[in-house]
């Protein structure tokens, strides 16, 4: 228990010391003074504020983006020339495994979580998420998962089975190092983080909307995040099962993937892809949501066909649960299964196509403002469409059988994920930066950032289509001149182009980092409504105050903020300006709510996350460690349960309602 005391020790704040001394231990268990008035790093460590947690998600995720990016550059260096000597075969395996895992679980999902955490409550007019402490717990568990995953580099080598870690290849016989064990643990803990986060955000959307904000008045970004959370809440338990089975096999001698015992090697593939395909939409839909905010704003037009965009997003999510076996066409499923899954997969192209047409028609006839955010959004539409089309070629099973495990697949999913997801996220960076930090990112550097990334990405991943069709296998660690094929446009040429492209891409990302640094040094404040935006997150200061809104907005329209600024001119049916954002925000400040209660910061989420991490490490390092972790978890859980979530009635309650707390002990 001594480690707990360290975290709980009140010496961090002198005023707490006296208090602690006067408490009996039993009181202390539930009544450790909360770190209410903290500042500096402690204000971040114990925060339950969704905005701070969002920023932390973003910073950590971007760090992992750089880690995953360096891994990708090493891969491309290895393949740039024949007989690459940068990496050994073993290191190469670890590199592509960790590149995929890092980019998906430690960059893409947390960056989406960053945007969701920060903007979802703001977009629905709420003052926080439904369960602020669970929100903090999600974040710290994600950190624990990320650290455990990457710790494997220094503790005997990283996982080397590819990001989908097919068993039995990932079993103890073929993957003897501890890398896969760390991978299992890291993903398991990051998965718990996502699961908690998804439950939290769904309840937030269902229950915390401002008065008048019906589901069909919610911004599309919030809608897409809602769909994503439903996908997560129902797909994560499946990967949990798969990871548990593999862990039991590796650490405790179970036989699930032992073919000599009669095990079926397809069991892992099914479990993984039942999770893995919804996961693909988990990655892309936040990007779709972001550009569905950006495109209307910078086209000066409402989103074309809002209900179609919403429902096609929801149906992409639902159908996404019925197509997983298209990842397994080459595994011998049998003709009936292949035909069924092939048809279902093609069906997904319909709602996706609907969305693309809606975006194009949103821009059609609009007064387009080519800001950096808009460029990235348009980039998404174009690049994702290319990736979507090669995706349809995978839905055709005979064609897919030829393409499976070639670079054609690598090309496809990088077009949808880099061209789709990453461009969407960058669009979000440029669009929302002034909201979060009160400063505009430099547009000129943004333009360099965009064009270098577009050119770099097409140079990197475009040639991979050709490499794949020429037959270069995915995950091949080396190629030789003798097997590079004939003619000028052979393996060698395209691999070199691709590798050069990857460095152009890296320079593009570097421009973003330079932009961020330059902007942070620039004293100039951004206007409150720099883009003439449409949704509620702009109806407050930048950055927003800790309680988000001075007065909880009452919503009457889709695009509420826009409709407070403009109204229709009866004479010529155009929109005329009736107010500007600054005035509206000032009016809100003047009419601020009197009593605003916010959830208090807490030690328990951080401590509980540490406990879970230690518990997990016990799987690798033995039962005593596990027992210690379990004790910390138990202790933190009790502390959590006994701590009231807020000192008093909370934010959106009007002061007359006493005793109604936003959350209560066992869950909050």
């Amino acid at each position, binding site marked *: 228990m001594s480690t707990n005391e360290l975290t709980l020790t009140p010496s961090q704040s002198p005023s707490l010391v006296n208090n602690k001394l006067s408490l009996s231990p039993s009181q202390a268990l539930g009544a450790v003074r909360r770190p209410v008035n903290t500042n500096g790093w402690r204000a971040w460590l114990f925060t339950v504020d969704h905005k701070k947690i969002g920023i932390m998600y973003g910073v950590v995720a971007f760090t992992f983006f750089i880690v995953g990016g360096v891994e990708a550059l090493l891969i491309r260096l290895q393949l740039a020339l024949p007989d690459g000597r940068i990496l050994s075969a073993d290191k190469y395996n670890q590199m592509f495994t960790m590149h995929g895992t890092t980019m998906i679980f430690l960059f893409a999902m947390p960056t989406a979580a960053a945007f969701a955490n920060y903007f979802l409550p703001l977009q629905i007019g709420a003052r926080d998420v439904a369960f602020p402490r669970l929100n903090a717990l999600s974040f710290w568990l994600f950190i624990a998962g990320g650290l455990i995953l990457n710790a494997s580099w220094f503790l005997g080598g990283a996982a080397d089975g590819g990001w989908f870690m097919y068993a039995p290849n990932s079993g103890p016989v073929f993957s003897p190092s501890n890398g896969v064990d760390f991978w299992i643990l890291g993903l398991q803990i990051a998965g718990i983080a996502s699961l908690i986060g998804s439950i939290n955000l*769904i*309840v937030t959307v269902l229950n915390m909307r401002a008065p008048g904000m019906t589901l069909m008045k919610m911004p599309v970004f919030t809608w897409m995040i809602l769909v994503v959370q439903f996908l997560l*809440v129902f797909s994560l338990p499946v990967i949990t099962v798969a990871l548990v089975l593999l862990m039991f096999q590796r650490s405790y*001698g179970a036989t*699930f993937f032992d073919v000599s*015992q009669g095990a079926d090697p397809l069991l892992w593939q099914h479990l993984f892809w039942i999770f893995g395909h919804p996961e693909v939409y988990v990655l892309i839909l936040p990007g779709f949501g972001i550009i569905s905010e950006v495109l209307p704003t910078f086209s000066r037009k409402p989103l074309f066909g809002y209900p179609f965009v919403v429902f096609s997003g929801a149906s992409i*999510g*639902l159908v996404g649960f019925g197509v997983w076996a298209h990842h397994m066409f080459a595994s011998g499923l049998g003709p009936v299964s292949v035909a069924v899954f092939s048809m279902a997969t093609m069906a997904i192209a319909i709602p996706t196509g609907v969305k693309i047409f809606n975006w194009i028609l949103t821009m059609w006839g609009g007064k387009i403002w080519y800001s950096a955010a808009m460029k990235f959004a348009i980039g998404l539409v174009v690049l994702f469409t290319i990736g979507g089309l090669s995706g349809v070629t995978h839905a055709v099973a005979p064609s897919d059988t030829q393409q499976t495990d070639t670079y054609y697949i690598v090309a496809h999913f990088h077009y949808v994920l880099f061209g789709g997801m990453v461009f969407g996220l960058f669009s979000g960076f440029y669009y929302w930066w002034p909201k979060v930090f009160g400063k505009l990112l430099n547009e000129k550097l943004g333009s360099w950032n965009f064009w270098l990334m577009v050119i770099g990405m097409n140079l990197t991943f475009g040639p991979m289509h050709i490499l794949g069709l020429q037959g270069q296998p995915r995950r091949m660690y080396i190629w030789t001149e003798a097997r590079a094929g004939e003619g000028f446009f052979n393996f060698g040429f395209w691999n070199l182009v691709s590798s050069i492209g990857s460095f152009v891409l890296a320079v593009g990302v570097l421009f973003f980092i330079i932009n961020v640094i330059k902007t942070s040094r620039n004293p100039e404040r951004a206007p409150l409504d720099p883009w003439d935006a449409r949704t509620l997150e702009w109806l407050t200061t930048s950055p927003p105050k800790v309680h988000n809104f001075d007065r909880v907005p009452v919503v009457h329209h889709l695009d509420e903020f826009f409709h407070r600024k403009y109204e229709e001119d009866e004479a010529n049916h155009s929109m005329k300006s009736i107010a500007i954002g600054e005035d509206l925000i000032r009016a809100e400040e003047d009419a601020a709510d009197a009593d605003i209660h916010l959830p208090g910061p807490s030690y328990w989420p951080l401590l509980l996350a540490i406990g879970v991490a230690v518990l997990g490490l016990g799987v690798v390092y033995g039962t005593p460690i596990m027992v210690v972790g379990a004790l910390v978890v138990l202790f933190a859980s009790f502390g959590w349960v006994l701590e009231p979530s807020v000192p008093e009635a909370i934010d959106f309650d009007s002061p007359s309602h006493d005793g109604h707390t936003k*959350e209560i002990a066992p869950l*909050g």
Partner: protein
Amino acid sequence: MADIATHDIDHATDNATDHATGHGHHSSTGLSNNKLAMWLFLGSECLLFGGLISTYMLYRGRVQNGPHPSQIYDIPFTSVSSFVLLMSSLTMVLAVSSAQRKDDTKTNLWLLITALLGATFIGGQVYEFTAFYREGLGFTTSLFGSSFYSLTGFHGVHVSIGVIMLLSLMGIIKKGKITGDKAEVVELIGLYWHFVDIVWIIIFTLVYLIPS
């Protein structure tokens, strides 16, 4: 996916707006955050146990070493322990009902009985595992062994966590330290408990009663 919900929630929102200053409920749907979260969690748990049950169904007949399911299952014994768990759902719901009537004494009594029934079930499972192990079915013996122990073990861990929550809840109620709506806390733990029970209803039929 969401069209069913849209209808309900939109109505609820109108209502919540109308009464925003008149009633104790301030959420958009008028429902409790905690209960929504618990039901979502249980919906998610369906896929967790579904995966474990499917793995067992796929592997139950694959026995290369050790005993076959039909050689070791003791149906009369398991029937009794299943019955115990089923009845603990009754005592749990009576605890919830007492809590809603603000009858602390009865709430605590029913919670205690529920915890004892749960502990009895766990005791039965420990006995069963020991007996199976003596008859040659280890965790690593065969695919059947691995998948059987994983499935029932996972369920057993859920029951054990439930017992711990019940006992903790009793202590917290006794000390008067509960934060939030007491009846709702009892109800939430009740939902979890019943879920564990319905999982066993499925396991009892699919694993024990229907031979491979």
